[in-house]
């Protein structure tokens, strides 16, 4: 897909990898860049300005995607304002640590609702808008926990494994007009609560012996948007971490 004249939506696009993706889509020529954010209003304003300076129309929507009504409202806003949607990137995600024995029903629901149910309903509702136009492209951001169990976040792994399954089922359900794929990044951007020591401590577990960058993810996004013969797949950019 060529992005010129297209309308794109990135969930969780105010900061971190979501922001890098929103800016990438703007640089690729999207006409309208929509992103959702939850709490980071200041970051959202700044990101909106940066995207606008690239010559795109911007719409920043506050959306708590654990609430399906807010997802409905976000897609409805895109429909009213732009009348179309061509690309959806499900990037919004939470990452909470909890030992296996400490996961409560409340955190389980919170993580699953934000990381799996939210992206599903974004996809379902976005697909209706895409189907009314020329079709579209959906990209879901998953992570290493899909392929490797991690004891400190079983609920997170379950949510991302669900999103991978939703990716494949979505690809089958929405073909041939909509392609649905996933990107599986490894260590590409230091979480805010990680010390430098903890972050750099990941390097020995990465065969390429280095950390990645948001740009590595953006390259995969660009590839998938152009790759007209790819659907239902994951693009791994993890420095080889998941071969181990």
């Amino acid at each position, binding site marked *: 897909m060529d992005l010129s004249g297209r309308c794109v939506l990135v969930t969780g696009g105010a900061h971190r990898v979501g922001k890098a993706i929103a800016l990438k889509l703007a640089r690729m020529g999207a006409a309208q860049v929509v992103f959702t954010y939850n709490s980071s209003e200041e970051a959202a304003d700044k990101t909106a300005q940066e995207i606008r300076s690239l010559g795109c129309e911007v719409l920043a929507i506050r959306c708590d995607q654990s609430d399906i009504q807010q997802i409905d409202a976000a897609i409805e806003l895109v429909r009213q304002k732009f009348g179309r949607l061509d690309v959806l990137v499900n990037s919004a995600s939470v990452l909470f640590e909890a030992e296996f024995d400490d996961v409560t029903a409340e955190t389980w629901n919170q993580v699953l609702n934000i990381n799996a149910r939210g992206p599903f309903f974004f996809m379902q509702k976005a697909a209706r808008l895409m189907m009314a136009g020329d079709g579209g492209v959906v990209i879901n951001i998953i992570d290493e926990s899909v392929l490797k169990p991690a004891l400190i976040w079983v609920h997170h792994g379950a949510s991302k494994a669900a999103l991978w399954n939703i990716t494949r089922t979505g690809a089958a359900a929405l*073909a041939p007009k909509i392609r649905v794929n996933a990107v599986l990044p490894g260590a590409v951007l230091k979480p805010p609560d990680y010390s430098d020591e903890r972050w750099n401590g990941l390097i020995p577990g990465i065969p390429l012996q280095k950390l990645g960058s948001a740009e590595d993810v953006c390259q995969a996004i660009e590839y998938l948007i152009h*790759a007209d013969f*790819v*659907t239902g797949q994951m693009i791994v950019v993890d*420095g*080889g971490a998941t*071969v181990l």
Partner: protein
Amino acid sequence: MNLENSVILITGAAMRVGKEVGLYFASKGAHIAFSYYEEDEPWQETQQEIEALGVKCFVMKVEIRNSNDIKAFVQKTKEALGRIDVLFNNASVWLRKPFLDISEAEWDLALDVNLKGPFLCSQAVAPIMQAQGQGVIINITDLSAFQVWNENAHHAASKAGLVALTKSMAFELAPAIRVNAIAPGTVLLPPNASEAKVEWAIENSLLKRVGTPLDVAKLAEFLIENEFATGAVYYIDGGRSLV
């Protein structure tokens, strides 16, 4: 890694997908070395087409099961083009037979061409890449590494072996060399494919079409350029593996 002025070695590229990939990389400014096997392959035309794009092209007849042939091909490529940045293990044979009828010779042929060949080529090229400080190896596997096709046991074993080889090499050759595999679905039908076969291929994809060699070339370009991609399999099958 940038394609401009890089040197890309492709096995089995006188025709079909290997040829189109070579032409695509050449159009991006890469110098190409390729091997062919049968005398009647149109390797001279392919060489001329690549050179017409303004890049160098080194060609050699190579028996991919023969380690001496491979060593000579790699050495002569280095002499002719100065370096080797990318190895594209493309040469492949596709034999089909019911399991009970596969002869020892047929088993050996499938495994030798599709698995031992990429192993020998990678082992010959990797020291050159390590001395350069970087390199990329791309192996062409296919969907039969992961799904069952009838009368395909020896082929499937060879392609599944290539996936395991990809991951082992990604681990052992890191961090200087990145190693990935591409698993294409139907990207180019044989020239004599029946209409029924074409229809079957279209029907058995989610996107309701067959792909093109250019799709494979663009995936390879992504894998060459993305500095954090290693040890994985990248499908390009129009969703066939989900049908």
